[in-house]
């Protein structure tokens, strides 16, 4: 026979379940509201919202088009809100960020776990924590006033002059505010997060496996390579989750990315990211019909990218087993 639950316990259960449910409700509202406000622009522009490169705010609303057929060229008349440049900017800056960020991350993890003496490791750990929480607007302000001009003069100009034939570097950088700058700044910002992930995974490698490697007479380089290969899923996860972080960032990116509607192979040009587009164009959107909806459509795809990338990243994290 099972004893009855006391009334007190039942009250406690429902009292605690309430705040838990509220939090879940918040997420649901987030998903629904993004979708809800985006739908009107889909009704007019359809999927072309994501595939066109023209951003043309006008008082005259966009011409209705077939919503299921994504086009590349919008109608000539009326406004049009194409998000492809912003999507491109987000992707390029995020990919740049993880390429550089991964390099920093691996170097930091290997340094802290294998090379640095204990005191130095603790100092580095604190510094990384400090970087992790720094308000993003401060990164942005530094990027705008210092990093941008620095990259412009010492990297982008020389690279453009000498390697300008390569499409990647083919445009002349007009200022420090480019999608490349955004990528570099983001790489600095996402590194602490990636370091935490990879480091935890690296530390979970059982000591006996490490002993075995040493006993085989491996050099440090070979040993590290072996360890990293054992935690490859974590590294992949860090890449994905870092990508998610980089694509979500708003304040810092808006200040350094240039905020111009652009798309192309060259990374030394100014651009928009989805979040910087939203931040930048928001005040305008009050005046132009459908612009706000288009911005929410941008938010929607940002949300979807984020959720997908993060889910895969977390599944990968669980794959590290010994």
């Amino acid at each position, binding site marked *: *026979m099972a*004893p009855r639950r*006391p009334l*007190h316990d039942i009250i406690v259960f429902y009292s605690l379940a309430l705040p838990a449910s509220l939090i879940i409700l918040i997420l649901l509202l987030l998903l629904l509201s993004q979708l809800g406000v985006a739908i009107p622009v889909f009704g007019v522009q359809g999927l072309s919202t994501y595939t066109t490169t023209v951003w043309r705010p006008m008082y005259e609303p966009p011409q209705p088009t077939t919503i299921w057929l994504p086009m590349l060229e919008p109608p000539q008349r009326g406004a049009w809100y194409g998000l492809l440049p912003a999507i491109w900017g987000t992707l390029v800056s995020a990919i740049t960020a993880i390429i550089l960020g991964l390099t920093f991350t691996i170097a930091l993890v290997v340094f802290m776990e294998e090379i640095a003496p204990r005191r130095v490791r603790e100092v580095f750990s604190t510094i990384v924590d400090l970087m992790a929480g720094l308000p993003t607007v401060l990164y942005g302000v530094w990027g705008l006033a210092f990093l941008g001009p620095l990259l412009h003069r010492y990297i982008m100009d020389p690279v453009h002059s000498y390697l300008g034939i390569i499409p990647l570097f083919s445009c002349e950088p007009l200022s420090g505010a480019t999608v490349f700058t955004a990528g570099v700044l983001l790489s600095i910002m996402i590194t602490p997060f990636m370091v935490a992930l990879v480091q935890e995974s690296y530390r979970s490698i059982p000591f006996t496996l490490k002993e075995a490697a040493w006993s085989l007479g491996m050099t440090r380089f070979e040993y590290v390579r072996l360890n990293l290969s054992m935690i490859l899923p974590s590294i992949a996860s860090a890449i994905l989750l870092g990508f998610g972080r980089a694509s979500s960032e708003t304040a810092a990116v808006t200040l350094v990315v240039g905020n111009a509607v652009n798309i192309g192979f060259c990374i030394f040009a100014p651009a928009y990211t989805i979040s910087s587009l939203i931040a930048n164009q928001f005040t305008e959107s009050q005046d132009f019909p459908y612009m706000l909806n288009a911005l929410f459509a941008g938010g929607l795809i940002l949300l979807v990218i984020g959720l997908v990338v993060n889910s895969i990243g977390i599944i990968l994290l669980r794959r590290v087993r010994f």
Partner: protein
Amino acid sequence: MISPAIEVKGLRVRISGKDILKGVDLRVPEATITAIMGPSGSGKTTFLKVLNRLIELVDGVEVSGEVKVYGSNIFDMDVYKVRRLFGMVFQTPNPFPHLSIYDNVAIGAKVNNVARSRKELDEIVRWALEKAMLWDEVKNRLHDPPWRLSGGQQQRLCLARALAMKPRMLLLDEPTANIDPVNTAQLEDALRALRRDENITVAIVTHMPHQAIRVSDYIVMFYDGRVVEEGPTGEIAISPREDITRRFLRGEM
């Protein structure tokens, strides 16, 4: 025995599909010290935790059978009322780390509404610490945190905490397993004094046959989830009826 404090019939406990208690029948007499003894894994601790229904905190536990405490079936009562009948001391000392020595003892009294005023609370705390034979050692540092005490002292603090509840019965789960011989003797002295002066019924789980013989008036022998035999210590110690009991008392388990 006239009106046993505890009467158990057909108690079965299963945890996550595994049978721990396989039909326990026993009686614990009032105002005595009863030793519940047996080798490790015989189900003694589980049995103890059934009495104050602490076992229900475990995931996947199934309990069946009849357990009567002072005549009432504990499964028909409100679980919190059942727990307040018993004061429990655990195998490893566990005084609350965030409370002072005084507050640790006091919380036993406060939760059970034993004291009506600050003055009464002070008296109960002092009484409990004296009965636990700890008062002299802590009377000048009642507001110190408990981790300043030795393991043996912490265990006596836990005894005081349980006593402050003014329970009718004390349950002790191998209380001296992790403390040194001197503190063990002190704890055992405290129990004997309690039985003599306060008429509290004591059930003490132990896997050490010598302790059972030393301390108790009544013995219940557990083996493999069942009661093998029970009786006054004098009889069991000299001439146990069962072979298992004999082997356990000789230290062959």
